[in-house]
């Protein structure tokens, strides 16, 4: 029996898993089903043409960009919860690279300011005469592939890199 579930993503939803911020607040989440293989293949092919330099790491629909970073690839977390998670997990905003560094998070925003995507910096390649060089990001594109890509190299729907956040603690 299928139907309209009230409380989707809540702890009472069987599709959710126990997931909380460091402060203990439950993070609404749902594990999604895989896409049919033909559809996923179409995704891989389509983005390969559009972003030939983006490297596919994995193709699964079960988690999204938020799930990759905040739930160890286990589940889907909507970007609506980003602000709460960053606040409760002790993140602070940092300036652009080089202040932002490997392991820090980049938040992409759409034209209306909506947080539409997140990724994690995995490599910064120095480029002579240009700061910060090439910033490589690992991110999950919605239900589609998980890619290693340049900072700006994402579908336009995912917005533009707007902010960098870090949970690094520096003891001087």
């Amino acid at each position: 029996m299928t139907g309209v579930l009230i409380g989707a993503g809540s702890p009472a939803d069987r599709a959710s898993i126990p997931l909380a911020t460091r402060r203990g607040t439950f993070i609404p989440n749902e594990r999604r089903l895989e896409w049919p293989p033909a559809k996923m293949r179409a995704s891989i092919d389509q983005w390969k043409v559009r972003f030939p330099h983006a490297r596919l790491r994995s193709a699964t629909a079960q988690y999204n960009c938020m799930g990759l970073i905040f739930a160890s690839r286990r589940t889907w977390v909507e970007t609506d919860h980003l602000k709460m998670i960053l606040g409760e997990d002790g993140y602070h905003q940092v300036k652009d690279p080089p202040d932002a560094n490997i392991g820090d998070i980049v938040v992409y925003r759409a034209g209306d300011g909506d947080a539409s995507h997140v990724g994690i910096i995995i490599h910064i390649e120095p480029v002579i005469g240009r700061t910060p060089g090439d910033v490589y990001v690992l991110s999950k594109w919605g239900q589609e592939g998980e890619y290693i890509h340049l900072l700006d190299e994402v579908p336009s729907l995912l917005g533009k890199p707007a902010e960098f956040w870090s949970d690094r603690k520096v003891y001087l």
Partner: protein
Amino acid sequence: MNPQDMASTLEEIESNEFAVRLGVASNFRTFLRAAQQEEAVWRVLRELYSQGGRLVLSQILQRVLELSNEQVDFRYENPWDTALTVYLWLLSLKDSEAAETAASAVSRALNCWWATKIARSVLLREQLQNDAGMTLVDVPSPRQKPSTGRWLSNASDLVLAVSLPGIRPSGKLRIGSHKPSVSSPSPPRVEWFLGRLDYRIGYKTEQSSVVTA
């Protein structure tokens, strides 16, 4: 637009390529924003508001009913989830009755995601807010207190008037519950029904709650 062009536009909306372009969205707003950038969606929207709009409306509704009844592989997400969502959204812009009919069908389709969310919005929230003067909120965990409202402590056989597709106006959203015993401080057990009483599509949990606006 002639029928062939419309058929080809709908085919485009149901294609894998279309689903891929929208599939990168991580929230519903982004999904809808993407849909609004699609030329095929604009074509349908223009036709919906043209003189022949009623015909287009019935074509889309018919397509929703067909896709909702398609056999799908239970291991995977419904391959028409994107198309169903877009169709339902288009219908909801133009005609709430058609949207309700479509939402009812979509809610029975297997393994939908965005489509289920928009169907829920059409069937429950809007109807309850508009017709019954009440607001349904997500059912909190038994461990959580509702952030607003109050427990319905005496919700036995509460029936909210909700118009439902096909069975209007006798369709009901029925919230059946057991009255808590006098000695029990716990909130009532609530079961959700939509439509006929033998057709339960909702959600049943121990000690869940209904919160009134």
